[in-house]
Each structure stands twice: as C-alpha cells, then as structure tokens.
C-alpha cells in the first residue's frame, strides 16, 4: 500500500521523543514553583464539609485520627494532615492518632513536632495522644473499637496509655465525636466497615487522588461526611484554615502540568483522527 503522505509536523508530533515529553513535564513543574501564578483556589463542598464539622464541634470534643500512608504519598497527605491537625489544635479538641501503615509513624511524629512550635501548650497525654503504629490492619481497627489501651499499651513515645488523662476520658472509637482518616489505599474501606459504621461515628476522609474516586459511594451513602481529595483538597483546606502551606504553593505547577497533558492528549487525538481520515481517503482513491 502506498505510504500515506501527511504534513511532516503531524507525524513528528505523534512520534514525539519521550525525552522531550519528560523535559516538558519537568519544566511545567519547575517554572511555576519559581514564578508562581497565584491562581485562585476554589473550595469544593466535599472539603468544606470536613472543615465545617471540625469547626462546629464544641471545644474539647474527642477526635480520632488515623494516618495510614507512607512517604510515597507524603506530598499529598502530609499537607492536608498538618492543616487538619492545626485546625483541631486551634479548636482545643482532644486528639488520638493511630497509624496502620508501618512506614508512616515518623511522618506523623514530625508533623506533631512542627505543630508544637505553633502551639507550645499542646501536650502529649493531655491534649493529644499519638499511639503510633500497630501491626494488624483490620484487627487493629476492631481493637480500637474495643479499647485503645488493650491495642496500644504504650504510645509512640513509650509511655503507658492507661495513665494518660486523655485516654481516661477517650479510650475507644465509640467515644469519638468525629474521625478523620488519611488514606493512601483502601484501609479507609476497613475503617468505615469495621470501625465507624459499627460504633456510629461520623468520619471524614483525606485521601490520595488515586483512590479519591473510589470513596465517593461512601459520600453519597453518608458513610463518609466529606472527602479531602489529593493535593488540591489539601490546598482547599489550607485556604479554609487561612494558613497557606506546601499544598497551596504546589497548585500552580499542578495546573500547568494538567494543562500540558490536556492539550497534548487533545492534539494527539485530533491529529490521529486526521491521519485516519486521510488513510481512508487514500484507500478510496486507490479503490
């Protein structure tokens, strides 16, 4: 069959070297970090719901938090976890934190230490308890539904949980007024099924963008009262708490890369369609 003749740039575009694509992506990330566009960030109802719930709880309410992620998801979940923990500390709520992913506890410890610079009176054992990591996944969720002290006899720092004032008033999941979970996988499904549904606790989810679409059924079924999805969700929460952080500064890069990929896919499909039409015309001419 005779070779199809197309304008050279269409062919060259469709066969673009992947190194050029990689370079464009790298530039699209780097340049807005150096020269921010400061595009406005619009808050979605899903994120606002989590914020409003924490905001409206009376001071001193019990909040359970589970940080189930590792360094691979840190850029997305760390900023939102920090923004939510800052909000909780500001409202003087009592916070108990667990971790179900083994590579996560040091990240949470780091976040707590950074927040203690902003809230010097925030005390371990009184205002918050960081229980740390426990092996078991779903079994740990069932365990914290029974008792924090049985599942976590010692906290992350090695102190006895039974002796903590906060644990004396808040010793199991059912005593939580609200729960926030930060999920990089499907551990959130288990928290809902084995934890919050069993003990009738409202829960909001901070999730990576990869798994965010999977949690929308829970939102519609009111098993989840809000979703903070991905880095954009983290930026929205920073806007609501009026403390811009890592997520807000990353939004411009996010926007530019998305626009780059968007136009690349659209153009590639248009050119592929043009190529297909030309092939068909060629075939008809030959016939």
């Amino acid at each position, binding site marked *: 069959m005779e070779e199809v003749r197309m304008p050279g740039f269409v062919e060259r575009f469709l066969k673009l070297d992947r190194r050029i694509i990689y370079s464009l992506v790298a530039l699209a990330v780097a340049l807005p970090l150096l020269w921010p566009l400061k595009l406005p960030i619009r808050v979605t109802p899903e994120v606002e719901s989590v914020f409003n719930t924490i905001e409206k709880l009376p001071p001193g309410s019990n909040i359970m938090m589970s940080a189930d992620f590792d360094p691979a998801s840190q850029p997305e979940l760390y900023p939102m976890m920090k923004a939510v923990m800052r909000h909780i500390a500001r409202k003087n709520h009592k916070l108990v934190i667990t971790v179900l992913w083994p590579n996560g506890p040091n990240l949470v410890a780091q976040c707590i230490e950074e927040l203690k610079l902003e809230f010097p009176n925030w005390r371990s054992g009184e205002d918050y308890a960081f229980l740390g990591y426990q092996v078991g996944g779903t079994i740990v969720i069932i365990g914290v539904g029974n008792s924090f002290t049985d599942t976590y006899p010692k906290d992350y720092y090695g102190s006895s949980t039974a002796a903590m004032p906060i644990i004396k008033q808040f010793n199991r999941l059912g005593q939580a007024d609200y729960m926030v979970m930060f999920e990089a996988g499907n551990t959130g499904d288990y928290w809902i099924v*084995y934890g919050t549904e069993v003990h009738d606790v409202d829960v909001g989810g901070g999730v990576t963008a990869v798994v965010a679409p999977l949690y929308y059924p829970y939102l519609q079924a009111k098993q989840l009262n809000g979703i903070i999805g991905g880095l954009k969700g983290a930026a929205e929460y920073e806007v609501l708490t009026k403390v811009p952080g890592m997520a807000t500064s990353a939004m411009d890069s996010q926007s530019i890369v998305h626009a780059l990929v968007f136009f690349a896919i659209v153009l590639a499909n248009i050119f592929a369609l043009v190529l297909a039409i030309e092939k068909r015309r060629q075939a008809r001419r030959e016939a």
Partner: protein
Amino acid sequence: MLNPAILIQAESQLLPWQQAMADFLGGDVMVAIGTWIAAGLTLIMFSFIYKDNPLFRLGEHVYLGISAGYLMSLYFFNNMKPQFIYPLLPFLDPKFGTPEGTVMNLWVIVPGILGIFILLRLVPGMGWLSRTTFAFYIGGFTGISLSKVFSGLLLPQFYATIDAIPYRVTNGPEFILLLNSLVLFVGALTVLVYFFFSVEHRGFVGGVSRVGVYTLMIAFGATFGYTIMARVSLLIGRMQFLMFDWLHLDRLMGRLAMILFGGG
C-alpha cells in the same frame, strides 16, 4: 524540607545522651549531609527515566534493605515488646513495679505459640504447623467480617442506591435532582448487570450491560484524571525538595531579583 530531629525536650522523656544524639543528628552539619545524600539518591532514582542502570539497581537494593531493617525494628518495638514480651515477662518492662508497668498475662503464650508456628514455615518439614495458625486467624476474622461486611457495606450501599430515587417529582431545579437520581440508580444497577456473567449479554441484558460499560468508562476516566493529579503531586514534592531544600533556588531567585531590580 522538614527537619527530622526536632524533639522538644520537655515532652520527649529522653535521657541526656539520647538528647545529645538527637541534637547532633538534627544539627546543621548532619542535616546538610543528609540533604546531599537525599538529593543524590533522588537523582539516582530519577535516572531510571532515561534507562535502567546499575546505579538505580544499587539504590533499589539499598532501599529494600533499609526498609526491611526499619520494619523489623518497628515490629519489635511496637508489637513484640508491648504485646508479647512484656505481658509474658513483665520484669523486663522498664516501668515494672510502677502503676504504668505491664501486668503479667500468661495467656499470650497461646498466640505466641501460634505465631512461632508461622515462623516454622522457614524450617523444612515443619511448615504444616502454620495451617493451624492460619485457620485460627482467618477463620475467626471471616466470622467477624461476615456480619460486618453485610451491615457495614452491602446494606448501606444498597439502601443508598434505592434511596437515590426521589419520592416525588416536581418542576424547577429538582429536575436536576431527578437526573442525578436516575444516573445514580440506573448507573449502579447497570454496572451490576454487566458484572453478572452467568447470563449471556445479549438482547435486553446486553443493552443494559452496555449502559453499565459506559458508566464504568466514565468512572475510570475520572479515575484517570485524578491519577494524573496524584502522580504529578508526587513529582512536585520531589522538585520542591531538589529546588528549594538542596539548591536553595528560592534564595537565589530572591538575590537575582534584588540585583536586577535593586532593593533596600
């Protein structure tokens, strides 16, 4: 970049030598060394984008070893010690004899023995003992999950699907609600029909399952869009580290701006 060695002394209950070690590891010198090592490893890992190479393989195996060592230590401190060793031998607990000390509980011998059965899988000829442990754990867990999945997942999701249909239809903005309700109800139902492979997808069933396929395609398209967001977020995180924590480009740009445009 976050400083990994901040530990507020008043809260941390560290001994003096531990505090000295933490101060040293969190000091400027060790943070600078760590930043350069982290930057080097980041670039080594990024080298895979060009092609697989021995440096990347080396980094991969270092990562594997460090990860395994870290996890083993973590399991020992967070699980073995408080849940098994201290209840069995409470005098090993540093807080033994105080109200915060661990209370003896000899019943942990039973799960301990079951746990050792799992470790015996490494010994040729003894692996069959682990079946008892798996039967105990998996059997018990599935008994719990049977009712929890039914009441915590199946029923609420099913009810929410049915509940999506409004009980009365009116004009005005509620038309959008009706459209949403129909999409939710019809979409969920048709997806379920698509996954029911015991009936051939022909005729009416075939038509219904086609609608399910399109619903799934839209859902996967949304997932694709969000996945792009997720992966780009991770890249932004690493670029922020390389540009600002390692190369201090933010300070460089600031100085350049002052030189070019002047300043106080």
